[in-house]
């Protein structure tokens, strides 16, 4: 019996004006978004490789001596991702660049030609279309599912039969979900065809899997809205009122709650400022220099002649290393504070399933704020590896004093020979390569969000189920 209802619902929906409008709108959005994505991705990849190759070329030029390699400032950029087709996660306004040598690493910066006079906007990608437009279509398809039938009088007739109420409810739900799947799948297929035929990149097996997970998440998300639509339809007296309520619910969940993030993070957490960061760095540096004798006699002084008996190089190295560590700690602390501020707002917005869905798909696709922190973390790990590499190479040179510290390269490393001056083999030098998280790891990170989406589903299902059981069909 349940399939009867589902079939009837689908046929009815397919012939309706709202379905046709949604289908046209959604497919054209998917197509337009993908066309633009292809062009943009091509451009981004080209820029990325240009900059990365330049960095490598500069690196190979600095390989004359090991000490130059230690002080060489590498500039690395975030890789553009093919899965930005699914979800972009505000990456274009996030820092995408970091500069470091083996001693210090700066804060990640935004290095792209972003027009700051334009309001922040989201690319028209899958998650944008699904979270904003398809969720709305879900409401439009379900707003009269119960109260509309009541108004038409057909609900009475249906329930006069021997069919249990939950089957009617599930039938309505499945009908709406399957109808929603049609524009969704069409859109996805169109989008994938455009991307694959344009040959911008090969979609790897892992990427296919991730795409499938994003699609599953999308269905989970849309199901919340279908249940919610059915629930409000059970509670409303007439279908017009039901649409009013649903529209306001939609505005609240999809637009207003996600916009409250900034307010929430401003209220709940402190804003880390550059001025404060610079003040801290300056004070720490001054303090260290003032108490430089703590690291050994004459640690704070240097003399023109390295063999001057007053020169105490090991103490100086300790001082410099302590200074570098303290500064790096302050910068890391600042970065963590910035993250914490943004994440506070983000967690607050998770009152809305839209925000949860966006976050979950960002994690699965490996983009967004989590990916930015991961990029920074990988850069730091690479910095450590490089330092280890230099340390091990340095250990092989008997002429070096084996004191790796951040004193000006030409003076400390070159004149005083604190680091080896031997040439290095370019092939042996570790190079930075940004790695994606595996599917298992991404899923592990997204598990809370998936759980939340399931919870939303469950709550909305329970609410609609109870409301429909108690529904007065007269």
């Amino acid at each position, binding site marked *: 019996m349940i399939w009867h209802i589902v079939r009837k619902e689908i046929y009815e929906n397919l012939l309706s*004006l*709202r379905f046709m*409008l*949604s289908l046209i709108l959604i497919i054209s*959005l998917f197509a*337009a978004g993908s066309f*633009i994505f292809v*062009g943009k991705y091509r451009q981004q990849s080209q820029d990325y490789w240009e900059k990365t190759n330049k960095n490598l070329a500069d690196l190979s030029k600095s390989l004359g001596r090991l000490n130059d390699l230690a002080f060489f400032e590498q500039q690395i950029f975030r890789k553009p991702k093919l899965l930005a087709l699914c979800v972009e*996660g*505000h990456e274009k*306004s*996030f*820092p995408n660049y970091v500069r470091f040598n083996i001693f210090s690493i700066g804060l990640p*910066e*935004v290095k792209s*030609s972003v*027009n*700051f*006079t*334009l*309001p*922040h*906007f*989201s*690319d*028209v990608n899958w998650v*944008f279309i699904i979270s*904003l*437009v398809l969720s*709305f279509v879900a409401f*439009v398809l379900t707003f009269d599912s119960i109260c509309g039938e009541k108004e038409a009088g057909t609900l009475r007739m249906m329930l006069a039969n021997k069919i249990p109420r939950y089957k009617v409810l599930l039938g309505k739900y499945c009908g709406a979900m399957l109808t929603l799947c049609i524009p969704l799948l069409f859109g996805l297929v169109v989008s994938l065809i455009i991307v694959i035929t344009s040959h911008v990149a090969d979609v790897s097996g892992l990427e296919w899997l991730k795409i499938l997970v994003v699609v599953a998440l999308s269905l989970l998300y849309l199901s919340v809205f279908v249940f919610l639509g059915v629930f409000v339809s059970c509670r409303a007296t007439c*279908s*017009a*009122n039901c*649409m*009013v309520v649903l*529209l*306001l619910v939609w*505005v*609240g969940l999809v*637009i*207003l709650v*996600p*916009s409250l*993030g*900034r*307010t929430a*993070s*401003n209220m709940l957490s402190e*804003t*880390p*400022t550059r001025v404060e960061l610079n003040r801290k760095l300056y004070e720490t540096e001054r303090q260290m220099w003032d108490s430089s004798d703590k690291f050994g006699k004459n640690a704070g002084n240097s003399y023109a002649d390295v063999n001057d008996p007053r020169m105490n190089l090991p103490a100086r190295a300790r001082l410099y290393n302590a200074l570098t560590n303290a500064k790096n700690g302050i910068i890391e602390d600042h970065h963590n504070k*910035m*993250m914490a*501020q*943004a994440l506070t*707002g*983000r967690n607050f917005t998770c009152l809305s399933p839209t925000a949860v869905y966006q976050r979950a798909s960002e994690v699965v696709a490996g983009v967004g*704020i989590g990916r*930015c922190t991961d990029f920074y973390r990988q850069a730091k790990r690479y910095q450590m590896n490089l330092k280890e590499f230099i340390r091990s190479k340095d250990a092989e040179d008997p002429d070096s004093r084996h004191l790796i510290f951040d004193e000006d390269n030409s003076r400390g490393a070159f004149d005083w020979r604190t680091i080896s001056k031997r040439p290095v083999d370019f092939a042996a030098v570790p190079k930075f390569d940004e790695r994606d998280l595996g599917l298992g790891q991404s899923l592990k990170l997204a598990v809370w969000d998936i759980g939340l989406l399931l919870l939303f589903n469950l709550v909305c299902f329970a609410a609609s189920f109870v409301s429909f059981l108690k529904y007065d069909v007269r």
Partner: protein
Amino acid sequence: MIWKIARKEFLLNLMTFKFAVGTILCVILVIVFVPVLAKDYLQRLEEYNRNVTANEAELRKVMVYKNILPTVYRPPNVLSVFSEGIEKRLGTSAKIPHFDVPEVSATTDEVNPYMSMFPALDVSLVLRIVFSALALLAAYNVISGEREQGTLKLILSSSIPRHHVLIGKFLAGLMVLIVPVTIVFILSLMLLLSFPMIELSAANWAGIGLMYIASLIFISAMYNLGLFFSSLMKQSAISLILGLFTWVIFVVIVPSGSIYLATQISPLESREKLQAQREMTIQEYRDKQREASGKFPNWRGPKSDAEGAFGMGYTVVCDESCLHDSAKAYPLMQSIVSNYSNSIWRLELSRFDGLLKQKHLAGNIARFSPVSMYENVMSILAQSDFGSFRSFMDDTRSYRDEITEYIRSKTYNFSSYSYFTICTEEDAKGYKKNIKPFSESLKSENEQDRERARENFDKWTNGIMARRSPLDLQDFPRFNYRPGVANSIKRAIPDIALLVIVNILLFSLSFVAFVRYDVRSD
């Protein structure tokens, strides 16, 4: 008769469920948003005042004209509570060095770049999203609903012309929608004024008044859209769905899509290229400067002996040849600077013009949606748009010229000694006598001798410093940035006019549709 219809509709609508829910939602949102936004404004105001005071304090410490390096600050705008625009993303300060290439920077980066994932929040967001939906909901069944109920037949069977019915319905809708708009504005104002620190100037009041009028025009446009769909379709459900789809396109798709398209159609010139160009010009300038300074071997350049105001040093005392050379060198340097500062300024402006071009393109594409037009009008009226920032930049530029002129007039075209030193002709004569024992002592092995000679010299220079007092800068021009209301109104006119045209167009369309409307029920 029009009034009868309008009154009946008005009263009917006022009692409806949708109206109540919409209004309550708006009230709650305003109560949540406005205090947060007002506090944010106060925070920025405090910072602004602190900065301006610090700047004044530095000005009082200036010993030589060369050290005048004030920073100007852009005051925060109280109307940003209504429409934030891009106010918070633009630079709030500019350093004005008269002797060097100006660095008028629009600091683009937010304090925390990760916060850019949240959209801006202001009162106009509530107005443009909730009210536009409310207007559509109020209008969708005005004609088609009455047809379904059969009452339209009854009305038209009396001797009342159709356009009277339509005008009556339109007026009624407008009257109903004025109520929540007015509530939102009054409530926001009340909440805003409940902060004792916030004061509204006459210009602010004018801005708020205009924003109110613009909101009404916008709401009426959205109502007309609903009215058009209602008189086009026979069933109210279909007019509702058509209206809602159009709404989603206007609210969600056009604003994002237009920017997306604009950034693809006219991509920005790469910043590195402009940066390189800028660096090249600066390099050229430095070369010229070096070349010129070669003519004055005794000029000490920007070297300094004492800490002055604005973190700049100055010369306390030097010998006569240095004094004379410097008096000739500075006017020449100044003429080089003014040439190059102009070309660098033009480079800076060309970057902004590139940004502006993209923004205009996005704006023009977005004009497809009345919601974007309204957003634009609101940010112009709240003076939080890019045009207002541009006028800040122009003011900064003319302030720099003003300062340069002031210093020129005070220092005989930068040739007076007071431009770079507190040393007088007589001090310069004494310089040789006093520096001699000091420089001779440097050769001596005895540390005590060196110490004593240094002390003597320091005593003498300190004596000179003690005799001088900071410059009297009572008549120094102060920066006064007052964005004109007249100017912003001028910029807002095209969009307001467009909104009015949309109103007229949609109303005439609904008129045509309604005149041909078939009132018979199926």
